[in-house]
């Protein structure tokens, strides 16, 4: 019964877990889509409106769409900044500085978006709106995209570091309990206990090394695949701990 409950719990977390990250961004993204739909509908319409009236409505629709894009971008920047500001305990001074640099860059991006937003909301015509959109597009393509992906990878490495810390703590607790564990199981099973602990320790050590490599951002390594590998190691180590727990229950002295 407990297994079924655990399975349901796991499924529930797997489903909602990943969505939590970008929860606040989803409505903003939907707003962008909605505003674009309206813009296209207006561009498409051939009704009783005079060309002047249509032009006015179209300008407003473009301004709304641009505003929605800016709102989404500001949300994204804030979301990442909040995460970076929570990080501490850096492995080196350099990494701490890098974190601060990212925070500063994000603050600059936020100010840039705000300045464009102010211009959009002034009494401007079609050509100015289009110019602002063009300016924003080229700025994003040349500066923002690359940097924001780097920062998202940086966040990933630090989130993984937290997971790694928890796994290390767990391993140390179990190692401290190893005498107690052995006193509870048949002596014939001691070899298995040692082996399970040894493998888990090795996996976690390796995960730590991979995570440190991923932290060396200057090498421009494939951060995502490194984090994936480190996380897989951690999960395997936990599977070992769970097997050890079963061994203790099934082979009492």
């Amino acid at each position, binding site marked *: *019964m*407990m297994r079924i409950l*655990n399975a349901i719990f*796991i499924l529930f*977390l*797997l489903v909602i*877990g*990943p969505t939590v*990250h*970008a929860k606040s*961004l*989803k409505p903003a*993204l939907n707003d*962008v*889509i909605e505003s*674009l*739909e309206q813009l296209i509908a207006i*561009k*498409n319409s051939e009704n009783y409106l005079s060309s002047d009236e249509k032009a006015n409505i179209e300008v407003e629709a473009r301004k709304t*769409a*641009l505003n929605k894009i800016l709102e*989404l*971008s500001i949300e*994204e920047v804030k979301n990442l900044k909040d995460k970076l500001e929570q990080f501490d305990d850096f492995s080196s001074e350099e990494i701490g500085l890098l974190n601060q640099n990212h925070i500063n860059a994000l603050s600059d991006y936020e100010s840039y978006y705000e300045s464009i937003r102010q211009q959009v909301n002034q009494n401007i015509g079609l050509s100015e709106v*289009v110019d602002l*959109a*063009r300016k*924003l*597009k080229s700025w*994003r*393509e040349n500066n923002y995209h690359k940097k*924001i*992906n780097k920062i*998202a990878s940086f*966040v*990933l490495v630090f989130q993984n570091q937290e*997971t790694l810390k*928890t*796994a290390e703590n*767990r391993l140390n*607790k*179990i190692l*401290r*309990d190893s005498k*107690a*564990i052995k006193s*509870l199981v048949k002596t014939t099973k001691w070899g298995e206990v040692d082996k399970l602990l040894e493998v888990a320790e090795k996996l976690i050590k390796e995960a730590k090394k991979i995570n440190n490599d991923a932290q060396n951002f200057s090498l421009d390594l494939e951060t*995502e695949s490194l*984090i994936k590998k480190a*996380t897989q190691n*951690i*999960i395997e180590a*936990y*599977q070992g*701990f*769970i097997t*050890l*727990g079963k061994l*203790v*229950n099934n082979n009492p002295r």
Partner: protein
Amino acid sequence: MSYDYLLEYLKSLKSINPDSDFLSRSRNLILNQPKRPAYVFHVRNQFLNVFKFSLAIGLSLIMFLSLSGKLFPKNNIFVASLNNKNLIKESLKADINIQLAEVKYYKETSAQVTWALSEIINNENNAAITRLLKEKARENDENP
């Protein structure tokens, strides 16, 4: 059919009698029905019924608890570090991390916003872009 004829016919039905075999069979059947015990409504037996019911519920509860490990915890309390619940919780946290949702999100929305900006810049209508954006958003919802 005339009215008089109908009346006569109905009167003749009065003299109908059941077949004697059928009569005795039915009587036996009715008399041999098991009698409803008089003590059903007795307070003592009412109590007994309640007790039986409680016993059944109690036994099910004990079975449920022992199966779920609450009554006789499977994990030995002396090895707190091997608590199954904590192990599952921590490994789940690691597993969620591996989904790399955040990095994926930023990569995808960057492309979506570029399309949206092109639509603001371009004068001609491009419904295909919105369709693509909508499809992407739906994919995001389905596979976050």
